[in-house]
């Protein structure tokens, strides 16, 4: 049910999921047992007159303190995870480490992915755009610069644990490192109109050499490797 | 009646909807209600003004446009509104002193101040539209017309309230307490006044 994690920082998200699940399920079971027992033990036929005194059970109020501690644990864990996610984002942008950048433009109802070409610079002649088709190299930092041409969209790659909104009029940045080669789904998760549910794209994680070949001649590469997808999605040029 | 006065709560807080006939906290319900209403209003304008300020911070051309608005009419209007606030305070004082004739005069002056404000505002809008600045001419003008227009609607409402209060207290058969009517109308008018004091620097001076 939980999609396979292929992201370098995905374990933060998965481990937080496990932590929070364990805590909430434990608290839920405890409270349902107490409530269930009270319902059976204190029904009218069993206990015709109520007693105000609670005795030892009133110590249950300390459950709130326990919950407070658990809250602190959860929020710290989650915040550390978050700091890994966004700290990475900041460092990448500020220090210009070795990364691969792709621009993402959401439109009703498709994604355009703009590749910088071999020179790794945007705004040059070898830029090219593919519709609904994102190719990234494995084990490399990938930066996605998101924006939108009309309404708000949200780029969601379940396997990478990536989700970020593409907002018209501003650029947002998302990053990830994929650790496994393969094909993965990309969807839109922000209601963007009647075709919202059809706004699907494909993520193809390839080896670093493959990626170079893809950038060098993407048409030939697509012919060779992913002909079905190439014809299915075609090319878009909306710049 | 006699015993009621003993409670020191006085005639003002006699509440017809209360089963014991008295206010629980000693303030008339109409005043409590007015304050609750105004606290909501404060947040409406507060929200708008904060939005506007946030927008201004990320919009460096703001001052170029705010230079285009008519600071003179803006300042005159400030004076008009403050005068109105002053006269309504006097009206309340006169009602308390049972000097109803002067109270009528002061409320009337407040109404005039409201109408004067609206007239000056209309002239100002007309001038700006003549210069080609409409609702569509960018964010500054959208905010300008949106906020000052909304405020003008409040001035209009306040003028209507004052007129109704004037009619009510000048009638022979008096519904409720004229003092609290004038006081609540005054509270609303002060509020309208205070909002203007915030709008003035935002759109005319900055």
């Amino acid at each position, binding site marked *: 049910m939980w999609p396979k994690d292929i992201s370098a920082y995905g374990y933060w998200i998965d481990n937080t999921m496990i932590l929070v699940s364990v805590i909430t399920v434990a608290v839920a079971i405890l409270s349902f047992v107490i409530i269930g027992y009270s319902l059976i033990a*204190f029904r009218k036929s069993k206990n015709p007159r109520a007693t105000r005194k609670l005795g030892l059970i009133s110590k249950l109020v300390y459950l709130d303190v326990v919950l407070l501690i658990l809250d602190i644990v959860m929020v710290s864990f989650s915040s550390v995870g978050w700091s890994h996610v966004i700290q990475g984002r900041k460092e990448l942008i500020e220090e210009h480490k070795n990364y691969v950048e792709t621009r993402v433009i959401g439109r009703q109802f498709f994604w355009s992915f703009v590749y910088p070409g071999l020179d790794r610079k945007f705004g040059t002649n070898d830029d090219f755009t593919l519709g609904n088709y994102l190719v990234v190299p494995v084990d490399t930092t990938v930066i996605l610069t998101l924006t939108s041409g009309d309404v708000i969209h949200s780029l969601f790659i379940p396997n990478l644990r990536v989700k970020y909104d593409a907002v018209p009029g501003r650029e947002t940045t998302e990053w990830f490192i994929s650790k496994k080669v393969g094909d993965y789904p990309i969807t839109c998760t922000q209601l963007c109109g009647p075709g919202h549910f059809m706004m699907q794209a494909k993520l193809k994680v390839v080896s670093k050499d493959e990626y170079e070949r893809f950038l060098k001649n993407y048409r030939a590469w697509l012919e060779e490797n992913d002909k079905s997808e190439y014809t299915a999605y075609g090319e878009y040029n909306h710049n | 009646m006699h015993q009621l006065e003993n409670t020191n709560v006085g005639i003002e807080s006699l509440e*017809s909807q209360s089963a014991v006939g008295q206010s629980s906290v000693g303030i008339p319900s109409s005043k409590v209600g007015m304050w609750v209403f105004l606290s909501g209003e404060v947040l409406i304008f507060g929200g708008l003004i904060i939005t506007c300020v946030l927008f201004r911070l990320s919009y460096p051309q703001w001052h170029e446009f705010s230079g285009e608005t008519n600071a003179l009419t803006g300042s005159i209007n400030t004076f008009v509104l403050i005068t109105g606030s002053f006269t309504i305070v006097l009206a309340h004082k006169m009602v308390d002193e049972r000097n109803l004739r002067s109270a009528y005069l002061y409320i009337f002056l407040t109404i005039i101040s409201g109408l004067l404000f609206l007239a000056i505002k209309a002239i100002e809008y007309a001038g700006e539209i003549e210069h080609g600045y409409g609702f569509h001419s960018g964010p500054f003008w959208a905010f300008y017309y949106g906020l000052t227009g909304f405020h003008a609607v409040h001035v209009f409402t306040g003028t209507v309230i004052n007129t109704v209060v004037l009619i009510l207290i000048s009638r022979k058969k008096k519904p409720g307490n004229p003092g609290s009517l004038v006081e609540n109308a005054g509270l609303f008018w002060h509020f309208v006044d205070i909002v203007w004091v915030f709008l003035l620097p935002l759109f005319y001076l900055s």
Partner: protein
Amino acid sequence: MESIITIEDAHTEHQGFIRRYIFSTDHKVIAIQYLITALIWALTAALLALFFRTELASPGAILTPESYNASVTMHGAIMIFWVAMPLLIGAFANLCIPLMVGAKDMAFPGLNMLSYWVFFISSIVLFSSFFVPGGPAPFGWTIYPPLSADPRFTGAKMGGILFLFALILEFASMLMGGINYITTTINLRTRGLSMMRLPIIVWMQFIAALIFLLSVTPLVAGVGFLLLDVIVGTSFFRVTAQSQGDPLLWQHIFWFFGHPEVYVVLIPGLGIIAEVFASHTRKPIFGYKSIVYATIASAILSFVVWGHHMFVSGMNPSLSYPFAVTTIAISVPFSVILVCLALTLWNGSIRFTSSFLFALGSFVAFIIGGLTGLFLGAQVLDVYLHDTYFVIAHFHYTIFPSVILASFAGIYYWFPKMFGRKMSESWGKVHFWGTFIGFNIFAFPLFFLGIAGGPRRYYDITHIDYLRHFQWIHVLSTVGAILLIASQAPFIINFFVSIFKGKQAERNPWKATTLEWLAESPPPHHNWNGMVPIVVNDPYEYSPEEEREDFKPQGILISREEVFREGTDAPIGKH
């Protein structure tokens, strides 16, 4: 002055039918008007849900993507603004507050009537939006611009405009109501009723009215701006070539309202649960003061959590730390309230009436809803779960119990006071089990669809590779929804038949303590028949140890003369 009041009482007895039942200023009549209007809307929204659930179970069967989006939007908006608000804030606050504080009516009865009729007009405006070209608003109940700000994107211009207008009217109506509830609670409490002796539900309604007042007002302005964007073509929230508005600004304004709004409908629901728990376990509410303070704390916290709706929106990511902390912190006051309610059951003598079953169902379901909120408050998890069916399931587990289940508990509980008759208990139980089981079959599987990464508001998941095998979740969920909606039939019949043919109810059928049970069933106009209720006890004096009777009413009824004979200089509202 006494004589004036008595004359006024006598005066109102001779009103005609229209003044008495249609344009009435009587808070009980207005409560019933709100109740019936809200139930009609609930039925409408449930039918919409039936349409799109059927659609989701068998894609392409009855709706187009456009009408699917419109139904989803209208279902959400109606359920929140035209069902939850009038039910909990309109009906129960109107019914409970004046009776429970021992007043003759609301502080401003005329305003109260106006509040209902403005609500009625907003209902008509909203309803008419179903019949305009382009259909009703299809941009989601959160109304995110630019999708909502520019009709070109959706093709539903008129529907959107009417929806936004209806929304402003609805807010205005609820604000008028709120002014009444706050003023009445502050000012019309009868002698001996200090704030700390108020029944929990009055506290909850009071706090809810305050949060609503403080949170909705910026949104009213925001909706006004959005309307300008749609109609005049300004760009407050739109991005065009000429001028750059800010779409995120709307999200800030909306969620600054949106999160407190959830508590506006949730807190009164908890209040109803508390009332029903106390009278059906025959025990005082455990930790009255803790509940009150915890509610105030959660109300304050609810104003500083809105950012958790925007973790992935492009807002500055560093803001996520404080918002995650406040969000998770808000679970503490709620756990205090829930633990207090759970401990109220302990050592009680529980009567399983339909009313109690609904309160209990609400309580249990709300625990699940509250706990799953922790998943969404943890910001790294929210990145994954945001805008998936997990959110839908969580939201339904919080709002459905606190609005629908709690309202049913309240309806079964106060029905005798409203109409002077009782509802059928056996049909009530059928209603409860159908509703509760149906709800869980409908909502619980959706958690797993969310965990699998299923985005919300998807018309059809069968053509998406990674979601295709989860179509069974939609089918199962639809089965639950059908059971849930079908189970409302016994309720509707029971409700209307009982109004005319139900068993006659005495003044205090549940042997409850609070003041409303001192009045006749139903209470006459001005409630107390010329008598005055005076508070002598705390609100929940159940099973006092020294006495034979298992409850002590909170107040006594005395004649007006006695009020003024007894020491009048005792300050009112203190004891």
